[in-house]
């Protein structure tokens, strides 16, 4: 399964209504991603990287073309199927962490497992594991407002990773972090990518992130401008 494709995109076009007309955010994207990749969508603001990430994450649907994620065609999924795809196979990491402020670190990480109906003992073990991956075992009972930005993002990573998804989608995960924290986070992700064989797809324009990527997909005006794979 090492090199099997988990994402295949053909001729993806995404338009948004804007004013009276339409705005074309993605225009003929063709792209595929294999299992275990550590890739990033790189481009300036408005280049369509977040839109593409959202479509891959089944939060949005293509206007034209086909997007297949883990063998499922995004445009054809029902809301329930899409939710199941996200629940079972995808992890999200956001620029502003999007943690549940009122829940503890433990509860935040546990949440995806609750959705997957893991039994309590299993959940505990998995959350503990995830906390270890990100090195936050001592913050288990804290709540997000009590954490630093870097810690928050690590919680977010743990939450995304705890269920061991096939693919993690990370949208500008370091935008709110200082350099040290950014490197820390990225290293954590690189490690997880290696250990768990989880594929990572970033959307970013942060050089620090880009420096860690093993595949750099440059987007410009809704098109793939360049696709560079760095071998080892």
């Amino acid at each position, binding site marked *: 399964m090492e090199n099997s494709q988990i994402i295949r995109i053909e001729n993806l076009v995404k338009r948004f209504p804007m004013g009276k007309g339409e705005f074309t955010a993605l225009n003929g994207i063709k792209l595929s991603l294999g299992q275990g990749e550590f890739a990033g969508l790189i481009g300036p603001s408005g280049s369509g990287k977040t839109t593409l990430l959202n479509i891959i994450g089944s939060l949005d649907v293509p206007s034209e073309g086909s997007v297949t994620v883990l063998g499922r065609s995004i445009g054809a999924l029902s809301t329930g199927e899409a*939710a199941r795809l996200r*629940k079972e196979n995808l992890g999200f990491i956001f620029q502003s962490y999007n943690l549940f402020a009122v829940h503890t670190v433990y*509860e935040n990480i546990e949440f995806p497992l609750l959705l997957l109906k893991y039994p309590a003992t299993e959940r505990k073990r998995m959350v503990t594991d995830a906390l270890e991956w990100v090195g936050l075992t001592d913050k288990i009972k804290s709540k997000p407002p009590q954490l630093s930005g870097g810690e928050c993002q690590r919680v977010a990573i743990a939450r995304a990773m705890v269920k061991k998804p096939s693919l993690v989608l990370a949208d500008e995960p370091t935008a709110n972090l200082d350099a040290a924290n950014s490197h820390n986070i990225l290293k954590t992700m690189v490690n997880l990518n290696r250990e768990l064989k989880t594929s990572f797809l970033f959307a970013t324009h942060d050089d620090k992130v880009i420096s860690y990527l093993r595949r750099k997909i440059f987007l410009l005006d809704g098109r793939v401008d360049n696709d560079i794979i760095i071998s080892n």
Partner: protein
Amino acid sequence: MKLAIKLAFRNLIGAGLRTWLNVIVLSFSFVIIIWLKGVMSGWDQQAKTDMTNWEIGGGQYWHESYDPYDPFTFSDSHSPIPGEFTGEIEKGDMEPYLIAQGTIYPQGRIQSIMIKGINPNQSIFMLPAHKLDTSMTDAIPSIIGSLMAKNLKAGIGDRVTIQWRDNQGTFDAAEILITDIFTVSVPAVDQGQVYIPLDRLQSMMGLEGEATILTYRNSESPVVDVPGWTHKPKEILTAQVDEMIKMKTTGQSVLYAVLLLLAMLAIFDTQVLSIFRRQKEIGTYVALGYTRRQVVGLFTVEGAMYAVFAALLSAAYGLPFLAWQAKAGWTMPVDASDFGMAIAQTLYPVYSAGLVVSTVLLVLLVTTVVSYWPSRRIAKMNPTEALRGKIQ
């Protein structure tokens, strides 16, 4: 659903102060709804309570000829107190009344009255009958109601002549001394009534040991079939009041509805705000694999859970409060200067278990609906925009 409940619970507990603000407000609404409804029913029941306390006790046996609406029947409606009741009367759980028709002559005017003989030691009625227990006067000690007193223009310590005809039709007259005046909201106990000691009336009438009405204390008392006496259970004696209560209760449902709306306004406001404020969170739920409808469910459960928390909180302080109110009553001083005396009415809120349970269930149901209503917006939200908190 179980998960939604669990999450909603965590969300609310996690939100801390803000949740408790809402829960406190809602629980106040709860208690106030139940209490106000109780007060309103109490206000309606008051007539019945007063009737019980002042007039009918737990039920009565009437002499078969007695007809309260036809004073002419009084002269025939009496007979010896049946032996079946001796025990109860000795225990003070039954009180005989003897009723005679008479005339009173206040300041040379003439007015028809009912003379009621009552046991001064009785404890079934709230009438201050003990004030009849005096040997300090040559006149007949008597108590009257405040309306009657106003009518007679008489006060405590005044003497008025009354006239009656005894068992044989012979005229007799004597002075009564008013030893006490009571205030009561049951006109039948007040207007045109003069209370004197039972044994006095019996000997005045030549009807020793006889009575017109026997009132017992407990409405659960077993019914005894006594020839010559008609049993009048409480339900029959209060039938008219019950009808009135039914009407009032119907009228109160509007009040109840308004009170419910009050609680709902609190929930609605909270709910709309939280949906607005928690867009990112909603987006995150979706990103983590919730469908939007599940998020709607989560928010609905959260709203409904306010009602559950509020119910629990209400139970903590509300139940003791409501119980205390029902027992102690709520006394309201009323300015009634035209009576020349201050009167106070104590109202005992009446709440049935049904009221409490149905209120809780209703609030829960309506809260759920009200929580669901604004939450529907979530289903229409674009999750990608929600994630960015862009929705206005």
